[in-house]
């Protein structure tokens, strides 16, 4: 029996710090551990004792890529606790802001983090030397997302215009008009993106996932909906903790989530798409079909195509929202503190983001629980590798390492959020 160890010191093109440890024994996969060593960040503890209105700004600091998701889950959970509902134009603006974050985050991941895997470049920089036009398109697309967040959120990173009950200031129709012009370009660029990534080579790997995502009566899910799965789950956010459990595993500073009855599950673009194809705009559906995607996608490597379809949808939806925008009579609905518990799930670019807050009569936070998408996907990332690795054992070490990293990047993991990624160690014995 020969024993061999392969180590990679750092996995790049993911957000945060972690490592992958793979143990192979007599040609079989013995163990796969996604080790997250980014230090725990204790945000839930920081929130205790703070006023309910501070939650959107504090939680926005959890992530520089998806702060809007944190703000949205925070305000919806607070509004649930306080028994208020926002006016329709404010709801539309929140959706527009979220579209901005999806465009920005998906644009970054597709073009700069994930595409190099498929085209055989070690980095986006190496890829940019030979694919200038594509990289420029990706950068400009991302920029349009930033512009939405800047205009509606008041700042590109960690927006400051979101509050419980609505916004501090709402934009005028006139202010949104130039964005609409930019979005028309972005929608074409997103359509080009779908065509471009659809031409990549995808490993033939399929898995029987339990997809979990929000589902709304008539919208592709962003801010609202019931929590559903393809294996029978159909619950409100209020029942999340009854069905899902966070477990501590020794090799990770991020908790891993499981469905109590069935174990690991998948959140994010693949899940949203497979559970909500019928809610996409006709343009996005048509582009998905032309790209060779069925209505359900179980090949995680095709998540890059799904992300491109979602980017197209977000541009389409943002345009629809701007065209239909009525200037709100008030920037926020009045909010009165009261004791209560509030729950919310929204769809961060990487997947479902759950928040729960308990408030006392003055509106002070007495308890907070936040479950980010990457901790929910950790178990499934490990299961993907366990399932696919046996077919890859003949690969050279370098190619194997590459494929493992690519597999992890299918999830666009945000390690900072989950504890918040990656050294890779393969041990062959």
């Amino acid at each position, binding site marked *: 029996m020969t024993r061999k160890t392969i180590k990679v010191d750092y996995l790049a093109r993911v957000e945060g710090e972690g490592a992958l440890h793979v143990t192979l024994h007599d040609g079989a996969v013995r163990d796969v551990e996604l080790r997250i060593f980014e230090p725990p960040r204790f945000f839930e503890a920081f929130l205790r004792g703070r006023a309910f209105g501070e939650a959107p700004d504090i939680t926005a600091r959890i992530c*520089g*890529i998806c702060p809007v998701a944190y703000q949205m889950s925070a305000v919806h959970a607070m509004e649930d606790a306080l028994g208020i509902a926002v006016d329709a134009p404010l709801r539309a603006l929140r959706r527009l802001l979220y579209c901005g974050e999806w465009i920005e985050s998906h644009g970054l991941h597709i073009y*700069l983090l994930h595409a190099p895997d498929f085209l055989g470049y070690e*980095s986006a920089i190496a890829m*940019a030397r030979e694919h*200038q036009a594509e*990289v420029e398109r990706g950068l400009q697309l991302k*920029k349009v997302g930033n512009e939405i967040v800047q205009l509606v959120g008041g700042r590109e990173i960690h927006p400051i215009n979101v509050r419980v009950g609505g916004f501090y200031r709402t934009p005028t129709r006139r202010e949104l008009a130039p964005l609409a012009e930019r979005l028309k370009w972005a929608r074409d660029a997103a359509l080009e993106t779908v065509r471009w990534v659809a031409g990549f080579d995808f490993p033939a790997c399929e898995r029987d996932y339990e997809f979990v995502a929000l589902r709304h009566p008539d919208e592709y899910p962003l801010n609202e909906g019931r929590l559903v799965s393809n294996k029978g789950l159909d619950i409100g956010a209020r029942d999340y903790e009854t069905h899902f459990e966070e477990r501590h595993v020794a090799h990770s500073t991020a908790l891993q989530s499981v469905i109590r009855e069935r174990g690991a599950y998948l959140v994010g673009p693949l899940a949203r798409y497979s559970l909500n194809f019928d809610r996409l705009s006709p343009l996005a559906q048509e582009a998905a079909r032309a790209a060779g995607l069925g209505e359900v996608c179980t090949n995680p490597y095709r998540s890059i195509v799904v992300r491109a379809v979602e980017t197209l949808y977000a541009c389409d939806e943002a345009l629809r929202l701007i065209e239909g925008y009525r200037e709100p009579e008030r920037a926020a609905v009045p909010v009165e503190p009261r004791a209560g518990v509030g729950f919310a799930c929204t769809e961060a670019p990487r997947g479902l983001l759950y928040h729960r807050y308990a408030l006392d009569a003055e509106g002070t936070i007495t308890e907070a629980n936040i479950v980010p998408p990457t901790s929910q996907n950790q178990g499934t990332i490990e299961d993907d590798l366990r399932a696919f690795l046996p077919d890859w054992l003949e690969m050279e070490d370098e190619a194997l390492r590459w494929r493992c990293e690519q597999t992890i990047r299918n999830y666009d993991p945000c390690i900072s959020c989950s504890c918040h990624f990656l050294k890779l160690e393969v041990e062959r014995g």
Partner: protein
Amino acid sequence: MANAAVVVIGVGNALRADDAAGVLVARRLRPSPGVEICEQSGEATALLEALRGRAAVLVVDAAAGAEPGRLHRLDASAQPLPQRLFGSSTHGFGVAEGIELARALGVLPPVCIVYAVEGGRFETGAPMSEAVVCALPVLAERMTKEIETLRHAETRDA
């Protein structure tokens, strides 16, 4: 001020000890005609956009190093930045990547100088190293001189 002759970009996070150095040096520089001073977090694509279309850019940032307070002047327009100095950023996609991406796309300014001060600690909320604090005015002074030289060169060329 898209037509500023010289753009200074202070990079860093003011809340993370020595990582504040780039931002603090930028704040020490006096705005003057033809000079634009801005601050950034160090995210690569934002830096790339700030470099695009500019003639002369000075970037100032903290760098990982063994000797806190040690200063470096690197001519990024002449050669790639050493990765060892700029290895750490929140997304693994920071100043060095932003500049190299600009070079790969052919949009790196003809003059792109990176000033770096080596930092000793980068923990959230920690105080700055004394050696880094002492280096700030020295670095600001050196950059002021270079800005003047570049401004005059721009005026002469124009």
